[in-house]
């Protein structure tokens, strides 16, 4: 039997609320600390206690960490999901289970390892009886460690981190791991081929979840006001603000430079955020689909009254309450025109955890420069799961506060200004805010029709002029939003367009298309709407463009088709939404199902070096970001894991 090293998936089936997350995170972190690229995804029910829940971990020496459908190792701790868990083990895989589950096992094609969980935990008198179930999860950690070669020292490091250095729980849990590993060594015979061996491919990386990253990024962006209402999967973003603000914005006098307020609902949350943004604060709220629906009327107000705010939408699958604990990219078309009448919103689309951090601070700059609400669409997978990430980087530009007038500015202008007067011709006007004591500083903000001086008017020509200016401002936004990230392949004949958390799955699919099907594909990850010139340039190059996304209706595909009607026939929607994080398999199969062999490989696909950035010589995947124009907020992005050679410009 050939060894399979550092390339397999592990799924743990437990009961929700049984405390298995400590154990699962410990496995994830220990593998990470062994230098092996890894991901962990919590596939949990909308329930506090009792329903089946799974945690799936993928270790991959090449750095592909998207979810896989195949599970080589399955650990069954829950009698309610036992049969399903047993059936899910890949042929030739391994099955660990708690031996107090007495159910038939009819899989001669796999290795089966019963674990005496209760016996081991009862054997340790230092474990209080009410902690036995919790600590019992460490039995599978220890046994797994022994059987696949997980480093016990790294497990200890993971537990120390988890328990923030508190010795007693660290010792209690680690002892169970050790005893279980010893028991496995003495009692289990290795019958499967799966092994972990140390690598050095996670050096310099961190593990974090997107919601925490977004919160910390927002703090580095100078957030001053956040109002929110609890909702899965966005709550942990606001909670992380509460965790990290006292640390990062600590002052000697103990006073606060910020306020975080839990509102009575999402209507109030965004209303407060708009109030704060209007009065000059860096203000944000965070929510998910149902909350977003409630925020719609206010979104239109913020757009029309031109109030800068940042709204994080950690997407879950809908419609309606949907599956509250399952991921999705289903809010894109909704947010794109969120609000009645002609509303156009600026959308940012982070693709990984460090972009959640970066867009955390950058979103405030964009919102204040454009004086408009900025919606940042993350998702449950990115927001709540631990991802490998490059370390967070300090903002590389000073805070951009946009066009503001204070008392001294108004004195210079002799009070001569208009809130909605387009002095600079870019659609962006000047603003003052409450607290400005100049007698000419005030204006009356309204969601009703207004002229350049913010006075109420129903005059048609004034209405048209203002709406045209807002459209111009939306065009100006293209210079401020992040440009896309481009991955190129030599001789690529097709283009793939995606956004957000599907990047890992798409990159793996690109690799499979090349190595297994001989299809070379370039991949563009869109990072904002409105689209920048780089998106247009990319779209112009291919006559087959696969638009990959996690929803039913192909929402990005719809938006692209409307924006590029002349190319609409070339867009091929690869859309799928079942609530699970994206996998390479569905991306690949979705593309293959719609792929047509090009009649000729040149034609309009011909391009020059000047139109494509940083064409690599090797066949390796290369992350080659495009550079935006000078005023663009584009940040050069470096590769975050070793499968992608960084390409800096």
């Amino acid at each position, binding site marked *: 039997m050939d060894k399979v090293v550092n390339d397999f998936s592990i799924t743990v089936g437990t009961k929700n609320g049984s405390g298995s997350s400590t154990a699962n995170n410990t496995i994830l972190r220990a593998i990470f600390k062994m230098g092996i690229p890894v991901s962990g995804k919590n596939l949990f029910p909308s329930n506090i206690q009792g329903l089946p829940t799974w945690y799936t971990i993928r270790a991959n020496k090449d750095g592909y960490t998207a979810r896989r459908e195949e599970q080589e190792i399955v650990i069954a701790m829950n009698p309610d999901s036992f049969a399903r868990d047993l059936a899910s083990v890949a042929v030739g895989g391994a099955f660990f289970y708690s031996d107090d589950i007495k159910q038939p096992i009819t899989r001669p094609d796999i290795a089966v390892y019963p674990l005496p969980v209760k016996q081991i935990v009862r054997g340790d008198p230092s474990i209080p009886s009410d902690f036995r179930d919790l600590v019992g999860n460490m039995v599978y950690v220890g046994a797994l460690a022994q059987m696949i070669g997980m480093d016990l020292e790294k497990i200890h490091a993971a537990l120390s981190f988890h328990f923030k250095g508190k010795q007693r729980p660290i010792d209690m849990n680690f002892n169970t791991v050790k005893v279980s590993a010893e028991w496995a060594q003495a009692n289990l015979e290795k019958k499967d081929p799966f092994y972990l061996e140390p690598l050095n491919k996670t050096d310099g990386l961190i593990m974090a979840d997107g919601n925490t990253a977004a919160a910390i990024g927002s703090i580095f962006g100078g957030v001053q006001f956040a109002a929110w209402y609890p909702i899965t999967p966005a709550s942990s973003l606001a909670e992380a603000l509460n965790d*990290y603000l006292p640390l990062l914005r600590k002052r000697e006098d103990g006073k606060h430079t910020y306020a975080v307020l839990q509102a009575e609902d999402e209507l109030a*949350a965004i209303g*407060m955020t708009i*109030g704060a943004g209007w009065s000059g604060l860096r203000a944000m709220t965070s929510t998910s689909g149902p909350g977003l629906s409630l925020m719609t009327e206010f979104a239109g107000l913020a757009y029309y009254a031109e109030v800068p705010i940042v709204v994080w939408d950690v997407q879950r699958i809908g419609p309606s309450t949907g599956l509250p604990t399952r991921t999705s990219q289903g809010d894109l078309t909704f947010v794109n025109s969120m609000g009645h009448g002609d509303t156009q919103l600026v959308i940012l689309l982070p693709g990984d955890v460090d972009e959640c951090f970066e867009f955390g601070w950058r979103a405030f700059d964009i919102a204040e420069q454009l004086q408009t609400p900025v919606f940042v669409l993350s998702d449950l997978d990115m927001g709540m799961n631990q991802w490998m990430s490059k370390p967070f980087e300090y903002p590389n530009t000073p805070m951009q506060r946009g066009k503001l007038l204070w008392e001294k500015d108004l004195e210079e202008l002799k009070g001569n200004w208009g809130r909605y007067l387009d002095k600079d011709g870019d659609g962006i006007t000047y603003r003052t805010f409450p607290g400005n004591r100049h*007698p000419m500083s005030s204006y*009356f903000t309204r969601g009703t029709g207004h002229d350049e001086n913010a006075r109420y008017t129903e005059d048609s020509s004034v209405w048209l002029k203002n709406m045209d200016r807002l459209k111009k401002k939306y065009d100006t936004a293209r210079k401020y939003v992040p440009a896309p990230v481009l991955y190129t392949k030599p001789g690529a004949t097709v283009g793939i367009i995606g956004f957000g958390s599907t990047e890992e799955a798409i990159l793996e699919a690109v690799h499979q298309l090349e190595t297994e099907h001989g299809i070379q594909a370039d991949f563009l990850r869109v990072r904002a709407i409105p689209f920048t010139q780089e998106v247009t340039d990319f779209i112009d190059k291919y006559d087959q463009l696969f638009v990959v996304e996690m929803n039913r209706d192909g929402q990005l595909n719809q938006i692209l088709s409307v924006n590029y009607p002349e190319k609409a026939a070339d867009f091929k929607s690869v859309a799928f939404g079942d609530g699970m994080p994206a996998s390479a398999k569905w991306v690949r199969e979705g593309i293959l199902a719609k792929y047509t062999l090009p009649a000729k490989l040149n034609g309009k696909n011909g391009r020059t070096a000047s139109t494509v950035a940083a064409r690599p010589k090797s066949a390796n995947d290369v992350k080659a970001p495009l550079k935006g124009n000078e005023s663009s907020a584009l940040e050069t992005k470096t590769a975050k894991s070793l499968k992608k050679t960084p390409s800096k410009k």
Partner: protein
Amino acid sequence: MTQPLPMAGTPANVNLAGLVKSDYRGNPSTLCQGCGHNSISNQIISAMYELNIVPENVVKFSGIGCSSKSPTYFLNRSFGFNSLHGRMPSIATGALFGDHTLKGIGVSGDGDTASIGMGQFKHVVRRNLNMVYIVENNGVYGLTKGQFSATAEKGLSLKKQGANQYMPVDICMEAIASNATFVARSFAGNPKQVKELLKAAMAHKGIAVLDIISPCVTFNNQENAYHSYAWGKDHEEPLHDISYIAPRNEIILEEEMKEGEIREVSMHDGSVIILKVLEKDYNPTDRFEAIRVLAEAQANNWLATGLIYIETNKPSLTETYNLVETPLNRLEEADLRPAPNMIAKVNALMF
């Protein structure tokens, strides 16, 4: 902000803020002639002038409706935000964090507060935002031409609507139930009382709910209605077809009411409302007594007017946040962005 004292020899109509009354005015009202809301706007102007308030130190807020239009008609030099229907409290809550030295004046109506905005009303009250919250209460929707609001009394009939079959919301009762720290009721036709209560409300730190019965001259036109300056009985036009609104004079009490006095006030059509001014020895710091007085007034079909409840030792919302002295919206990057060395610290906190 401190204001210079008036120079010696300044005209007598200049107040201690160095301003004349016209400095407190707004644009001309576009509400119906005789509307109680205009009278309230005028009393706001007078109260601010007499209190020597600097207009830039006040921020105006409103929702949607006739009442919510009125912030345009006073304090032109103050910032204002005419927001969404029923959502003025949340806008005000966020905005007053921008500069904690500012005082809010919110103007809402009975529809804006007691129907669509009931949730936000009660929550802004329990948070004790530093704002005067005026409800210009007429029991009817004016801008959409004459539908019932939640404060309309049971049995009231309106054209096109039939009879109201539900019990009314008592805004003062709701405010007290939500732990308001200042609750008062007045009548737009009693300008002196309105002004005095406005002054008290402005002086209060925290939320000050002022329920001002402000009859709709146009739509709440039935006899014996709480909120009505009824129309002449000869007025028969269908409501949604109205293109001409007969000018009416505002109803103003000819003689100020005394403490404890109960007075019937005649309306345009000869109908009456009954006002009861709270007794002289009434103790507005007693919450039980406040609730009793409101219940008693309800039972007797009175409108109990005056300062119903006050509690002065509760911190306002922004005070509970331990904010820096500098207004938050004047902080700069050095105050807001953590130092570069903090990024390493944060990364070390991740696994």
